[in-house]
């Protein structure tokens, strides 16, 4: 495993306290996780860190990152990320965002195109297609969610990812952490995760790759193609036998696609 650590990064005299995971060495790469809490230094971060200096911050309101109350609009949020990442690295950085994190990554590439060396959107939110609606993640039953999230909900990777603590108190705390995460990210996505990115996306000039699972039942693969249509020159890789979380369900194919792309930029 690559050497890594947890740390807290303060902004504006402590108004914001960002918890993040950091590891590896090389060119800087920022990974932004989805609407649920990221589960520590997971294998996909470790793989990225074998070649890059990885920063994986927790979003405001999640994993102990403080400051959500100071962010009222998407504009506030995007400027927060620009300032936060600017404090982590002064160099242009690779930016990888999954799901909700992909929506933030796309907005960040809109806001500061010269800072984003390359952009990777994985099962990303941010757009809306009436004929391919994104699932309402807030009302799915656990069974519906499992079916929409995974190509194979019974796979070892899926079961390990969704496993609940045995201890009832720990289990309830984990549930509350998930609710808190959904509540926090919902501040910027509720009730539909389309906040006008199509009007701004022409500003993206970073090399861009979409990575999608062919069986993504939450954010259908149609969105990979829509992002590709809206970002001229971008690439898309649709991974077979894969749901909404390619870095967990098909980690080898995922990392092959991401490394292949990043090595060119």
């Amino acid at each position: 495993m690559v050497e890594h650590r947890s740390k807290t990064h303060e902004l504006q005299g402590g108004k914001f306290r960002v918890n993040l995971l950091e590891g590896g060495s090389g060119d800087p790469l920022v990974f932004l996780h989805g609407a649920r809490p990221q589960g520590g230094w997971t294998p996909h971060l470790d793989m990225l860190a074998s070649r890059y200096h990885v920063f994986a911050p927790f979003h405001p309101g999640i994993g102990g990152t403080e400051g959500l109350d100071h962010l009222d609009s998407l504009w506030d949020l995007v400027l927060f990320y620009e300032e936060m990442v600017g404090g982590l690295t002064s160099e242009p950085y690779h930016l990888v965002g999954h799901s909700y994190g992909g929506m933030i990554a796309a907005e960040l590439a809109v806001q500061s195109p010269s800072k984003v060396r390359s952009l990777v959107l994985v099962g990303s939110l941010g757009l809306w297609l009436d004929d391919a609606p994104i699932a309402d993640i807030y009302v799915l039953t656990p069974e519906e969610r499992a079916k929409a999230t995974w190509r194979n909900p019974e796979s070892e990777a899926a079961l390990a990812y969704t496993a609940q603590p045995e201890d009832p108190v720990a289990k309830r705390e984990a549930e509350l952490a998930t609710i808190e995460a959904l509540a926090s990210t919902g501040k910027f996505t509720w009730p539909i995760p389309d906040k006008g990115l199509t009007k701004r996306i022409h500003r993206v000039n970073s090399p861009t790759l979409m990575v999608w699972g062919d069986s993504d039942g939450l954010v259908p693969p149609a969105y990979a193609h829509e992002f590709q249509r809206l970002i001229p020159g971008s690439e898309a890789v649709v991974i077979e036998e894969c749901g909404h979380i390619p870095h967990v369900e098909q980690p080898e194919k995922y990392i092959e696609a991401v490394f292949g792309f990043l090595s060119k930029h």
Partner: protein
Amino acid sequence: MKVSFFHLMPYQSLPDDFAEKHRSAWVDLPNSNFDPQQGRHMYDDYLDELQYADQLGFDGVCVNEHHANAYGLMPSPNLIASILARSTSQSALIVLGNSIALYQPPIRVAEEMAMLDVLSGGRLVAGFPVGTSMDTTFAYGQVPIQLRERHTEAHDLIMKSWQTRDPFVFNGKFNQLRYVNVWPRPLQQPHPPVWIPGSGSLETWDWVLQRNYVYCYLSYYGYLRGRRVLDGFWERTAQLGIDDNPYRVGFLQLVCVSETDSQAERDYASHVDYFYNKMLRVYGPFAESPGYRSIESLRAGLRTAIGTNAQSSTSQPVGWKDWLEQGHVIAGSPATVRERLKEAIQMLRVGHLMCLLHIGTMPRELTFKNMELFTSEVLPSIRDTWSEYSDPWWPATLSSRPEMAGLPGD
């Protein structure tokens, strides 16, 4: 003691197999299930019942706001209240209330409530609920985590607009108005009484007490369970050094009166069954959008007032006997109802009792029977409760009902 008649205006014609076919009477029940011709007759009956409540001597009539559901056909309670402003004369118009976080600008609520107050000759009680998760975050698409902040700002704006005589500037987070100038303004001065319905969330108690409003607990799980919430409210009141005037609290109770205990079951059981098993059928996630309640409240394990969470938290009553035993419904002969209602009033220390006397599918004649037996056989025995207290949370013009003998202050 103030005793009011609460109406939910349910849609009565859900099919027998509704529960098998639909997960919820709220949010996503297709409106093809609503028959407008039948709906028209329901509105007629319900308005008759509300008007009759005024004639029978209830202190107030209560209406409320819900959206996208078969549970209550009042997306705009103000429309109903405006009819009642003209067709009733003695009772308070308790609008409980308008979900003020939903309106931008909420000036609309200030205006309509002021109209109601003027139209009714100063009989309005203004309720400002946060609103259910179903209504606010799903049917009206509000961001759950911002709902309470929005509610607070709307409240601040409405209250200031009612009490300020010159146009003013309001620079809020959600509402910016260069000219706040509400016409008409309320008849009651400085403003109509304010009641806040809460579902037992920690956030609401301090907020209500600091502003000296009435706290209303509207649950359909009866006084035995309501006690847990109101005990907490009274405890907090004492901690803050605030007096324990029972009129600080409002409580809703389902009540069914008949000639005998067994006749009550024959009269009402099927209607109560419709209420619990159809009207209150809410798909769990709709009742609890993430952020609707704070993590602290969730950790404290409080239930939402309506919805699957509330229902699944203990063993569920399946029939008449369970509803009675658990206090969800107070029902029976006049003597039985008197006894249990007195017990409930003391246990909860409630000064503003709201009775749900139309339940589920009850036809008009049966509702009238329930109302008549209640006002003739039950109401006189509880009316003098708390006569040693004054009620500053009631429209001043209605501090006593003239035809009622022996009221405090008479």
